[in-house]
């Protein structure tokens, strides 16, 4: 547990970076510090491993005042991941990952075998061990950065905008991986970002900072979306927070209706008979969706349903048909419906096979039910 007690950081020029911060970071959770530039989120993070010392106030790590610890020793027990990874250019990937164990006096062989395990854990092929950082992509470098921070198996991990310098697809990948790692490792993670979407995606708890280093709200992501404390938080959380809040509601029990399907390669006349409201989903041998076909489109096909000419489908809504429940959220279901050309979202099971369709209406009535049963805060 990390406790900030009335922590203030004031610079000699009078700038207040952090103003009387009181906050408790829970063990085994991801706590995200989010806010605009100059809100003191990074300063707060860097005070935890004494890269910056507070002007006043106390920070306790597992009940112990961190000022009593020698900074280098304190830092060896806290993983540290920064924006551009900060890998050592002159060392191989493997030796980068082995840095902290080597510093702590572990022998070279043990440190390297530990480093190799971590590379595997973060999804880096062992063929990269002998490469140098300059030979890696930004995303790969950041994976090495995470592996390096985890090498000494510290209970606490500090991550300062680790994914903000990589492109969106890679970022999504890294975020998923962090969540997967966390489900296995149960670290106490403090994560700084300026991206509210990232905060909501990753955080068990999110601390929103405002300029001047004041804590505006400290809550779970769903509560932050449903009940922003004030105008600053609601504007920071963003315009479509109502829509994004649907992501926290599971779509359990929403009715999945019939959906018209035709098999790729069927004769156009047969396909025409199957259309519902002028549309049908084209599926492959395993019943997986390939796209949509309409009456207009069918009239351009002579012999069979041509998979090259299909209208691409929207997002897929995954239900877990074996358990009778759902794996997706209301947001997934609604997005599937809204992004489909036929206004019917394709519901698929775990194998990707089409099991039915959902409409926006069913999602909205499920939302109304959740609201009346008090499942939605506010």
């Amino acid at each position, binding site marked *: 547990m990390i406790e900030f007690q009335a922590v203030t950081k004031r610079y000699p020029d009078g700038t207040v970076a952090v103003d009387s911060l009181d906050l408790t970071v829970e063990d085994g959770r991801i706590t995200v510090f989010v806010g605009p530039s100059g809100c003191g989120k990074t300063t707060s993070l860097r005070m935890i*491993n004494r890269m910056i010392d507070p002007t006043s106030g106390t920070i306790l790590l597992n009940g112990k005042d961190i000022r009593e610890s020698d900074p280098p020793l304190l830092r060896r027990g806290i993983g540290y991941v920064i924006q551009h990874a900060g890998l050592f*250019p002159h060392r191989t990937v493997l030796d980068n990952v082995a840095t902290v164990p080597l*510093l702590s006096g572990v022998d070279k062989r043990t440190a390297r075998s530990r480093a190799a395990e971590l590379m595997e854990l973060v999804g880096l092929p062992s063929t990269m061990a002998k490469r140098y950082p*300059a030979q890696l992509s930004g995303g790969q470098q950041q994976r090495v*950065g995470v592996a390096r921070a985890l090498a000494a198996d510290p209970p606490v991990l500090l991550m300062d905008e680790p994914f903000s310098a990589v492109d969106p697809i890679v970022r999504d990948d890294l975020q998923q991986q962090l969540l997967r790692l966390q489900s296995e490792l149960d670290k106490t993670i403090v994560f700084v970002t300026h991206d509210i979407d990232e905060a909501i995606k990753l955080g068990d708890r999110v601390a929103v900072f405002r300029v001047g280093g004041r804590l505006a709200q400290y809550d779970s992501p769903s509560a932050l979306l449903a009940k922003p404390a004030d105008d600053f938080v609601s504007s920071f959380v963003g315009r479509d927070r109502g829509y994004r809040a649907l992501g926290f509601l599971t779509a359990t029990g929403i009715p999945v209706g019939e959906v018209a399907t035709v098999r790729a390669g069927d004769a156009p006349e047969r396909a025409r008979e199957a259309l519902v409201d002028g549309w049908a989903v084209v599926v492959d041998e395993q019943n997986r969706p390939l796209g949509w076909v309409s009456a207009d489109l069918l009239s351009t096909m002579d012999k069979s349903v041509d998979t090259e000419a299909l209208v691409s489908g929207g997002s897929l809504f995954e239900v877990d048909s074996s358990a009778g429940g759902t794996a997706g959220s209301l947001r997934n279901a609604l997005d599937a419906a809204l992004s489909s050309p036929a206004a019917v979202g394709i519901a698929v099971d775990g194998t990707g096979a089409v099991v039915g369709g959902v409409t926006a209406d069913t999602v909205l009535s499920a939302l109304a039910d959740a609201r009346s049963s008090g499942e939605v805060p506010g």
Partner: protein
Amino acid sequence: MDQGRPGGEGVNSAFNWLFDPDHWSGPTGFPARILEHLGYTGLSVLIAALIAVPVGAVIGHTGRGTFLVAGLSNGLRALPELGLLTLLVLLTYVGLLPVVVSLVVLALPPVLAGTYAGVRNVDRSVVDAARGMGMRGPSVLWRVELPNALPLIVGGIRSATLQVIATATIAAYVSLGGLGRFVIDGNNAGPGSPDGYPQMAAGAVAVAALALTVEGVLALAQRLVVSPGLRATNLVGKNT
């Protein structure tokens, strides 16, 4: 006597002098003079590096005393070596010490500037990560900043070495050895003598050849000591 004349014949006579087997043996032959020359150079560059690398590294690491780097480099560069040597000889005695001091003064600025810039230019996020992982100041300098500064440090040493090889000819001016001997003796022999201009020219060619050879050796040494990770231009797959 034709040998003193400029033109094609003069060049020929210089090379004849240079490759004359009589000039390649004994204590006054080229091998002995080359060794003396390398001795002055090696000693001066070594002393300069022992002073400038630690000073440049500490200034670069702490960021304190930056003004010293610019001031010293420019100030020392402005000194004329021959004048300095004459002054030192007048103040002390004729011998190795004033020669080496003059050459050290020449070698200091490039090594100091290279080391300082090398350490200072290490990516700040790399230094931040090193500290954040629990390295103490000396470790950060020794294990992170210096290895990454090596290309510029070695660059400074190479540049200093070239300048010192060229300038070490002044040792002969105060009756010491080295390749400068041929230049000074040739000058003293006068234009008409077979050991005159041809000898001077042969000495100059030998200095240039020595400088190029040493430069090649140092370039190889740089490849050996600098981490392959820092030769980013030779690396592939940088942005995927």
